[in-house]
């Protein structure tokens, strides 16, 4: 089995439902050290993807591109743009293909991560979603079934959340409250963790 547009559709339907469910949680987390819009960004973006599902082409690259655009359209916030950036990297990597093997997932994540780093000019260790993504990418290395990948990713993100909890945020809006962020989970990491949850269901 491999990733196809059809699987992408199922995945986004689940993620959208999950994002609706955790919208308030993410808003509240972001509200403590930022502008409190992370839940809105995620649920609006995912809903917009779901609106487009019928129109998603079989070309996996083009399909990824459409999902990316859903986020550039619905939000001006950092997280929306970063997700769009990551999805666009995946789009470029899969352009012209109708499927991508599960074993390619680590490479796709690495591509997304690199693009997001370049876009946001943040480093690993800054306590952002990037740290969670990097940990997930490392954890699924060598695994080629989606269930195993998701389980490994979930555990890795949990460990990352714990590892960073007592460190300060070093980039983004939360940076200006640096001391206040010690002891708090980074909202973007939690958002990624909820996406993994949604995919697992």
């Amino acid at each position, binding site marked *: 089995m491999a990733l196809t547009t059809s699987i992408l559709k199922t995945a986004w339907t689940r993620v959208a439902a999950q994002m609706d469910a955790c919208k308030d949680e993410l808003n509240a987390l972001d*509200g403590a050290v930022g*502008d*409190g*819009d992370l839940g809105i960004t995620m649920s609006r973006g995912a809903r917009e993807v779901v609106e487009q599902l019928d129109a998603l082409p079989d070309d996996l690259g083009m399909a990824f591109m459409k999902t990316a*655009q859903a986020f*550039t*359209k*619905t*939000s*001006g*916030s*950092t997280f*929306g*743009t*970063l997700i*769009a*950036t990551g999805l666009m990297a995946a789009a470029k990597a899969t352009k012209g293909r109708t499927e991508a093997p599960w074993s390619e997932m680590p490479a796709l994540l690495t591509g997304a991560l690199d693009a997001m780093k370049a*876009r*946001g*000019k943040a480093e690993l260790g800054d306590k952002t979603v990037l740290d969670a993504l990097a940990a997930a990418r490392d954890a699924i290395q060598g695994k080629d079934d989606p269930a195993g990948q998701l389980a490994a990713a979930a555990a890795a993100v949990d460990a990352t959340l714990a590892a960073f909890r007592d460190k300060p945020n070093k*980039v*983004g*809006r939360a940076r*200006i409250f640096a001391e206040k962020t010690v002891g708090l989970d980074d909202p973007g990491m939690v958002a990624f963790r909820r996406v993994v949850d949604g995919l697992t269901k």
Partner: protein
Amino acid sequence: MKKLLNDPAKFVDEMLDGLCAAHPEFYRRAAPGARVIVRADAPVAGKVAIVSGGGSGHLPIFTGYVGPGLLDGCAIGEVFSSPSVEQIADAMRAANGGAGVLRLYGNYGGDCMNFDMAGEMLEMEDIPSTTVLLTDDVASAKPEERQKRRGVAGMVYAYKIAGAKADTGADLTEVTRVAQKVADACRSVGAALTPCTVPLAGKPTFQIADDEMEMGMGIHGEPGVWRGKLRTADQVAAEMMDKLLADQPLARGDRVSILVNSLGATPPEELYILYRHAAARLKDVGAEIVMPLVGRYATSMEMAGVSFTICKLDGELEGLLKAPAACAFWRV
């Protein structure tokens, strides 16, 4: 939250409705309901277009400066939030008169990402564009890390001067060069007395005691250099001038413009008291003041506080600063 508004979620759209209704001679939505404003006569064929944007709540920045001799288009985000990539791209598309687009905006994380990404999108559509970032806030990073500084009221000089250059028919490279030159010539510093309230958040952006001020604070409440007891106008003006002159020393005979800017609630009476001190200081240094600006040019809604911007001029910049320009908030 003591504001005259309806649904906070409609704050930005209703504001743009009113703005376009009041001043159709300057502002036009790029598409019905869009948070993208362009000059009434956009696109101006053959002219380099200048596009800016950022969060709402800073009027006249950003949207207010759309007009002849200033900006061609603007993408408007929620209050204190970046516009989306799509909106920026739309602003660039609608403003482009065939000679390319200068993206001219302030250095804030979200804005940079979104403007960059929009620029890449436009590249795919064969619309060439360049970036000039304002990084004028001396309180936000050391001189060695100038590129990390926030962009604040220096934007006003950049819009005015780059806008005048574009009006001469100069090409994108030339307009970009001049815009970068203004950006390099501007230094700003601000001091906040009170916070403001983002309508959707409903609570003040920060807490500060009734007898306190914060020197060097950012326009969204980003931490400054010190927080302490409120000082006199002369003390505040002196410290701000010290910071600006330390960062960009001036010599006898230098020509500068200075902007004494209210962050919102601070009334013009106080600005003129501050200006009085700043002008005397520049005179002491031997610098000549050209076209001083005193008023509300870059704000954070009802925040009380002030910022000073010094723009060091050469013959080219001075000529362009004095060229005609018009928008609903400013006329030269």
